[in-house]
């Protein structure tokens, strides 16, 4: 693969990415990766269960229900029950994946998540669907943009936010085989598929998707694509070479990769479809404040609620589009140069 500038894109090659510079990328919702991964996980291990609270179609658990009817449980609109019951199922050896919209689970069920999953150390997996403002027309009540914050502060919890549908499937398979309470966050809307079957994935291991030494853009979820596009445009327009890191595991975060990005690039931009407060970027800031202080700019929702609209329109309006990432990257780069 070659970059827009014609140079070999070694990071993208090493990661077996698709040629994301092309305009006609396959668009698949990350929730589809959830559904496909779960069917396969359920075949590999019959103790893997799918448990739904009335949203089996939209969380993409319907395929699992058809493929593994004996491993499927439906309990209706009761998200606290979803967590508590899953704790009981896990206590007798099951690996329950519990599905709802992130706003309701863990949004409604946080205390059960803390007590029954984390303090009690049970192997329950939360499938947090419809996260972010890209839920779109449903509006603010259904747009979870605080979920990373409330989950990453819980001891023992794993928090994973894959970048596309293919990576979501890999995450489901990996997490199904990894013991421990888990939160997997994914979205509703179609988003570009940038990874391939060959792209490696390991929980807790951040991935450099684009090389660059001027600024590091650390992103998670579907905005990794926007970060890559922003980086390419910045190289062309400003000559700024940005490293792009797919920081899919919020907890336990790959601290070495974050510190290394700060060491090499000297300035950081974090990008997430979440409140700036308390999310992935906040964790990056915590790590760097302690280990290697560097200028940081945060891209995310700025202490506001979402609203109805088209997903792309909302991403732009709330300051997470390509232009917003470019502007934040220029600011971070300027701050680094002022400091030098």
């Amino acid at each position: 693969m070659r970059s827009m500038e014609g140079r070999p894109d070694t990071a993208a090659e090493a990661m077996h990415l698709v040629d994301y510079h092309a305009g006609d990328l396959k668009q698949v919702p990350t929730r589809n990766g959830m559904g496909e991964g779960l069917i396969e996980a359920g075949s590999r291990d019959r103790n893997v269960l799918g448990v739904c609270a009335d949203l089996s179609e939209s969380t993409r658990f319907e395929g699992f229900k058809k493929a593994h009817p004996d491993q499927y449980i439906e309990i209706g609109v009761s998200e606290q029950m979803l967590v508590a019951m899953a704790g009981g199922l896990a206590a007798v050896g099951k690996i329950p994946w519990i599905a709802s919209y992130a706003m309701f689970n863990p949004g409604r069920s946080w205390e059960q998540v803390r007590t029954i999953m984390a303090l009690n150390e049970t192997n329950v997996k939360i499938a947090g669907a419809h996260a972010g403002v890209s839920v779109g027309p449903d509006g603010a009540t259904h747009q979870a943009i605080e979920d990373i914050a409330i989950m990453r502060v819980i001891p023992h919890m794993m928090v994973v936010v894959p970048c596309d549908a293919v990576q979501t499937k890999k995450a489901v398979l990996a997490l199904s085989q990894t013991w421990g309470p888990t939160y997997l966050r994914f979205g509703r809307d179609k988003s570009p598929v940038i990874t391939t079957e060959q792209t490696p994935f390991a929980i807790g291991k951040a991935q450099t998707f684009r090389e660059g030494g001027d600024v590091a853009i650390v992103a998670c979820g579907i905005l990794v694509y926007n970060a890559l596009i922003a980086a390419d445009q910045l190289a062309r327009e400003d000559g700024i070479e940005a490293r792009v890191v797919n920081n899919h595991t919020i907890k336990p975060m790959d601290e070495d990769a974050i510190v290394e990005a700060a060491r090499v690039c000297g300035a950081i931009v974090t990008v997430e479809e979440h409140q700036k407060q308390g999310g992935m970027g906040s964790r990056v800031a915590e790590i760097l404040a302690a280990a290697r202080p560097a200028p940081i700019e945060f891209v995310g929702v700025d202490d506001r609620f979402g609203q109805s609209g088209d997903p792309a329109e909302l991403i732009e309006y709330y300051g997470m589009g390509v232009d917003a990432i470019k502007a934040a990257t220029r600011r971070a780069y300027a701050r680094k140069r002022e400091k030098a």
Partner: protein
Amino acid sequence: MQSLSAARVNELRLRANDVRQGIIRSLVAAGSGHSAGPLDMADIFTALYGYLLHHDPANPEWPERDRLLLSCGHIAPVRYSAMANFGYFPVEELLTLRKFGSRLQGHPERVRLPAVETTSGPLGEGLAQGVGMALGAKMDHKDFHVWVVTSDAEHQCGLHWEAVMTGAKFALGNLTAIIDRNFIQIDGSTEEVMPLEPLAEKYRAFNWEVLECDGNDMAAFIETAERALEVKDKPQVIVAKTLAGKGVSFMEGDYTWHGKPPNAQQADEALHELQAERERILAGA
């Protein structure tokens, strides 16, 4: 109730007396904690550990054991005392209740003490977990039974009723809930704080098998529990009427003893009363 002789009942009443004495000793050593609920549930926990449960104190994680969940974690002293008295750990360990580094946390934690089956304290969550365990057992054709002890006041929690609905949906005959119906909670009488009656009718409307008994009458409780175990096609609930603070006269029926321990002098008085009761049981009264 073929096997339960009068002698066996008396032996269990003595064990319940041991459990009550252990509760008082642990609470006075802790200097904080709940008195009324643990005392009123001493008979039921003795019946469970001493008669009803399939369990092995030497092998607390035996996979086929019956599961006993305590949903209202604040009455942990009765569970700890019963476990100690039935061989899970030395009785002296009860004096570590609520102390730094103890396995006997103020509210029970499974990770520290696996035999408690789950971590509880936040109310209204135990039955939901019991439903999960019973459903998991049913899916795997396991024979163990799931018992969940709940307080009456935690029936004010929405999640508890989600669990009641779910238990009925999956026809969990391997699940029995026991309600400590002592009519008290921190702020006063349950019927004044937030009325629960008609409690039995509510469960019937949710398609549970409902049994009622005096939870401080050893023989009556065991007989009721055995009738519950005969029901195979739906979950069962035993509404066990108990007297808050049972066994210590100055605590009985007084909600102010819900959340405080006896001081040293009160503990002496309580132990004196319980010893007298023990002698009456031994005399066959």
